[in-house]
C-alpha cells in the first residue's frame, strides 16, 4: 500500500505525526515482519476502537500489547482471564475503610489506559459482558456510582482459537464491540531466525523511551476524526456493506455499526499514511480486520471463513470511478 500523500497539499509534519512514525518504526523492531498488523493495531487505537488478537500462544500477542502501551506512553494493566474470574476482579470492589468508617471503591485493573485481557474466551459470560459493557460505555457503575474510565481507554483482548475445552466463545453481539480482529501468524523464516538468535524481544522495551503520551494520543484521535470522508467514498463503503446483506451463504451481513467502524478505521489508516482524505485503498486495507469477525458463514464447517469472505468482497465490489 502506498504511503504517498496527496500532492499539492501540505503534509502534516507536526510533532505528533513524526512521533507516530517513530512509534511505527520502533514497533517494527520489536515485532518483526508484521508491519501490516502493527499499523492495524495503531489504526485501531487511533480510531478509538478495541482490538481482538486471535492467535495461538507464543506468537507475540502480549509483547505487541506491551510494546504498544510502552511506546505510546500509556499506563497499562494485564488481566489473565480464567473461568473463575469475577466481574469485581476487573471492575473493582467497594471495601470498608475502618479509618473513615465508610465504604471506599477500590479501582480494579480496568482503570487504566490500555488493558490487556488475555484469553478472554476463558472467562464466564458474566465476566465477559462486564468487561464488554465497560468497553462500550467507557465507564463502570458500582453501587449506584458511576466511575469514568481514563481517556484514552483501549482494550486489547487475546484469544486462542484452537482451545475449545472450558472456553466460552464470544457471541456475535460482543464480537461486534471490537473494532478489529487481527491474527499475527507465524513469522517468516528470516524473521524467525532473528528471533531465535536474539531471544526475548520484550527486553528491548526497557531500552526504548516512549515517543508519545496520553495527551498526544488524544490529539491524534482528534486528528483522525478530521480526516475527510467524501461522498464517493461513502458510496463505495455502502456498496461493500450492501454486498454482505441478503446473501444465502452468510448468517449476518455487516451492521451500520460495522460500517461506522469501517470508516473510522479507514480514516485512521489514511492518517497513518499521512493523508488528509480517505481513499478506497484505505477502506480495502482495513476491511478484512474490521469485517472478518462480523461475517459468519452459514456453514462454519466449510473452508470459507471470514477472512476469505472479506477478500472475496473486495474482489467483487468495483471501486466507483
Amino acid at each position, binding site marked *: 500500500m502506498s504511503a*504517498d500523500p496527496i500532492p499539492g497539499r501540505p503534509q502534516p509534519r507536526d510533532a505528533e505525526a513524526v512521533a507516530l512514525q517513530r512509534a511505527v518504526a520502533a514497533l517494527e523492531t520489536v515485532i518483526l515482519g508484521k508491519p501490516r498488523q502493527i499499523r492495524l493495531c495503531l489504526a485501531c487505537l487511533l480510531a478509538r476502537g478495541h482490538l481482538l488478537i486471535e492467535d495461538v500462544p507464543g506468537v507475540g500477542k502480549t509483547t505487541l500489547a506491551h510494546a504498544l502501551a510502552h511506546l505510546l506512553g500509556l499506563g497499562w494493566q494485564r488481566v489473565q482471564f480464567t473461568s473463575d474470574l469475577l466481574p469485581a476482579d476487573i471492575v473493582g470492589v467497594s471495601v470498608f475503610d475502618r479509618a473513615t468508617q465508610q465504604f471506599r471503591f477500590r479501582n480494579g485493573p480496568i482503570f487504566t489506559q490500555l488493558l490487556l485481557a488475555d484469553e478472554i474466551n476463558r472467562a464466564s459470560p458474566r465476566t465477559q459482558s462486564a468487561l464488554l459493557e465497560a468497553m462500550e460505555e467507557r465507564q463502570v457503575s458500582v453501587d449506584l456510582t458511576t466511575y469514568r474510565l481514563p481517556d484514552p481507554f483501549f482494550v486489547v483482548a487475546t484469544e486462542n482459537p484452537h482451545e475449545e475445552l472450558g472456553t466460552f466463545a464470544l457471541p456475535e453481539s460482543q464480537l461486534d464491540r471490537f473494532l478489529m480482529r487481527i491474527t499475527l501468524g507465524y513469522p517468516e523464516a528470516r524473521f524467525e531466525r532473528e528471533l531465535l538468535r536474539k531471544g526475548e524481544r520484550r527486553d528491548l522495551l526497557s531500552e526504548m523511551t516512549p515517543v508519545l503520551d496520553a495527551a498526544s494520543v488524544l490529539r491524534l484521535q482528534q486528528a483522525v476524526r478530521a480526516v*475527510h470522508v467524501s461522498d464517493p467514498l461513502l458510496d463505495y463503503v455502502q456498496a461493500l456493506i450492501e454486498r454482505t446483506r441478503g446473501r444465502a451463504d452468510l448468517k449476518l451481513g455487516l451492521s451500520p455499526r460495522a460500517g461506522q467502524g469501517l470508516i473510522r478505521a479507514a480514516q485512521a489508516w489514511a492518517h497513518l499514511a499521512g493523508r488528509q482524505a480517505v481513499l478506497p485503498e484505505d477502506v480495502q486495507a482495513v476491511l478484512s480486520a474490521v469485517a472478518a469477525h462480523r461475517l459468519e458463514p452459514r456453514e462454519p464447517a466449510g473452508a470459507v471463513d471470514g477472512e476469505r469472505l472479506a477478500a472475496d468482497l473486495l474482489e467483487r465490489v468495483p471501486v466507483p470511478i
Partner: protein
Amino acid sequence: MSRDHRVASASAHEPARPPGAELRALLWTAAALLGGVLLQVDRIPLWATVTACLCVAWSIAACLRRARLPGRSIKGALALAMIAAVLAMFRTLNGLEAGSTLLAAMGSVKLLEARTRRDRYIVIGTALFLLLAACLSRQSLPYAPLYAAEAWLCCSAMAVAAHPESSLGNRAAARLAARSLLIALPLAVLAFLFFPRLSGSLWALPNTGSAVTGLGDTLAPGSISDLSESSDPAFRAWFDGPPPPPAERYWRGPVLHDFDGYTWSRPPPWWFGTTTAAAPASRLYRYRITLEPSPGHWWLALDTVLGPPAGLVRLTPDRVLVGAQPVTKPITYSAVSDTRARDPDPPTARVRLRDLRLPPDRNPRSLALGQRLRREAGTDAAFVRSTLELFRTGGFRYTLTPPPLGADSVDDFLFGTRQGFCGHFASAFVMLMRAGGVPARVVTGYLGGEWNPIGGYLLVRQSDAHAWAEVWLQGRGWTRIDPTAIVAPERLTRGIDEFLPDAVSAPERLILDVRWIVAVRQAWDAANAWWTNEVIGFDLRSQLTLLRRLGIAAPRPAQLGWALAACLIGWLAVTGWQFSRLPRPPRPDRLARAYRRLCLKLARAGVARRRTQGPAAYADAVAARRPDLAATARVLLMSYAELRYGPSPPDRLADFERAVARWRISPRTRSARGSRGKRSVASARR
C-alpha cells in the same frame, strides 16, 4: 512473463481478467460449443466430435498452464486439414451435414485462439449455428428440451464472456440468460405464428432423415413379422365422431398383384388405369391422419377410401393412395372412408388376367388343391367358403415365429409347417383362389389401433401391420376375406401384443399391462402427436386458418409483414419500458470521464486498471510495470484521488482534464518496451 504480455496486448481495452475468471469463461464457452457438437453427434462424422473434444481439452490445459497453445502455422494447417477432410468425405462444403461438420471443426479450432471477448463470441455463435442445424435436421418432441437447454447454455456462456472480469457468478449468468430468453419468447411466438410462411421450399433443406420401418411394396414370408417387432407409430387418426369398431379397422396400404411363387409384389405405377368412383354405401367415417415418415409412398386410409385427399397423391383403381414422393416427413391429410363399400365394377380383362396369373412351375400341390376345391364347390362363393373351412380345420396355427419356408412357399406352408402369421395365410389363400380361377389379390396395411383417450385419436403402430386377401365375386364385387381371422379370430379385436404373449418380452409386457404406465405412455404419445400436428405441422394453411379466426380473411404477405412489424414494435415498446424502469447507473461526470481517458491511456501502455483498484493502488501497479511512466502517472492519479475523495475546490478539475489530455505516452518508450517484450519472449522460449 511473455504470456502475460501477450494477453495484455490482446485485450488492451478490456480490464485484465484474473486467471480463474479466464478459465471460467473458457469452460463456459467450451461447454456451449460441445453442447452444439453433441446435438449433432450422430449426424457428423466421428472425427469431428473427437477433434472438438481434443481442442477443448487442449485449450483448458493451456489455460491451466499445462500446455502451450499452438502457433499460427499449426492452427492454419489444422483448419486446412479440416476443410480437406470435409471435402474428402462429403465432396462438398454445402448441405446440412457437410456444413455442420465444417462448423464444428472450425469452431473447435477457433476455441484454441479464443482469448478475447470477441473470439469467445465467435465460438458461441458457432455453437448457436450448430443448434440451428440440429433444429433443421430433427424436430421431434424429445429434442425440444435439449435444444432449449443448449440455447440457454449458449446465452449463459455469452453472459459470462460479456461481463468484464467475469464478475458475474455462474448462477447469476444462468439466471440472466433465462430471463433474456423469456423476454425474447413472446417475440419468437409472434414470429412463429405470423411470419409470412412461403409455400415454396425456400428453406426446406434436402431431408436426409429416412424412416427405417414401414410397409414395403413386396410381401415375402417374414416381412410382416419384422414389422411386428417395432412399436414405432405408423400413423395417428382423429375421427369426426366415434371411431369404427375394432373389427372394421382395416387400414389399406399397398395392394399386391404379382406372385412369383415366394414373393408378392406390386406392378409399376404406370400399369394402373384410371379410377372410378366408389359408391358410398352406409358407414361413412371422416377422419384426419398424421402419417409418420416411412420408406414407401403409401398414404394409409381406412378401407375403403372414397376419394383422394388434397395433396400430391393419387388414388389407383385398386383403391390405394399413392403419394408422389416418399413420406420423408410427417404429413397430415383428411379423408372419407366407407367401411362397407365394395368396388362393384368387374375388373377389366387385363386386370383379371393379372389377378389370375400364377407361376406355372411353382407350388404344384397347392395349384392342384385349388383346382380340386373349385371343382367340388361348384360356385365361387362356395369355393371361398370351402377354402376358409380348410384353414379352420386343417390344423393351422397362428404364430409370429414360423419355421422357414422353401422356394415353393405355399406348398411348404399348406402341406408342411402349417404355422404362420397373416402374410402366410393371405398368400396361401390368394394362391388357392387364383388356382381355382377366382381373381384375387393380397392387400397389406394395418389392422386395429390403440385408442388414446387423452388425445382422442387412434394410434396405429408398425406392429399392427397386417395382410389380408380380396377376391372378386360376381354380384358382390371385390370382397375382403381375412383368412387370419378364421384361424385366429381374436386377432381382429385385440392387438397383436395382447394376442401373442410370446411376441413381447417381460418388461414390455409390464409396460403394456400396468395401468399408470399405460396412462403415462398415452399422455406422452398425445404430447408427441400435438407437437407433430400443431407445432411442426404449422404451415401456411394452419396460419391462414388462425388468421381467419382472428378476423383477417385474405391476408397478403405485405399485410402479414406489417402486422408482424407492428407486433415487433409493440414488443420493443413493452420491453423497453420494462428496461427503463430498472435503476440506471448515474451518467459519469466530467471528472470520471477524464479519469477514464487517463486509464485508457495507461491501459494502452500495458497497465490496465483492475476494477477494484483505487487510484493509489493503480499508481503502484503502473510503477511496477512501467517505471518510466511512474512519476507522471502518480501525479495525475493522485490529483484525481484528491479531486474525487478530498475536500478540494472544484476549479482544479479543468487543470486535471488538461493534464490528462496533454499527456502523451512517448513512442520511444513504447517501442523500447516492445523490443524488451520480444526479447523476453525469446528468452522464455530458450
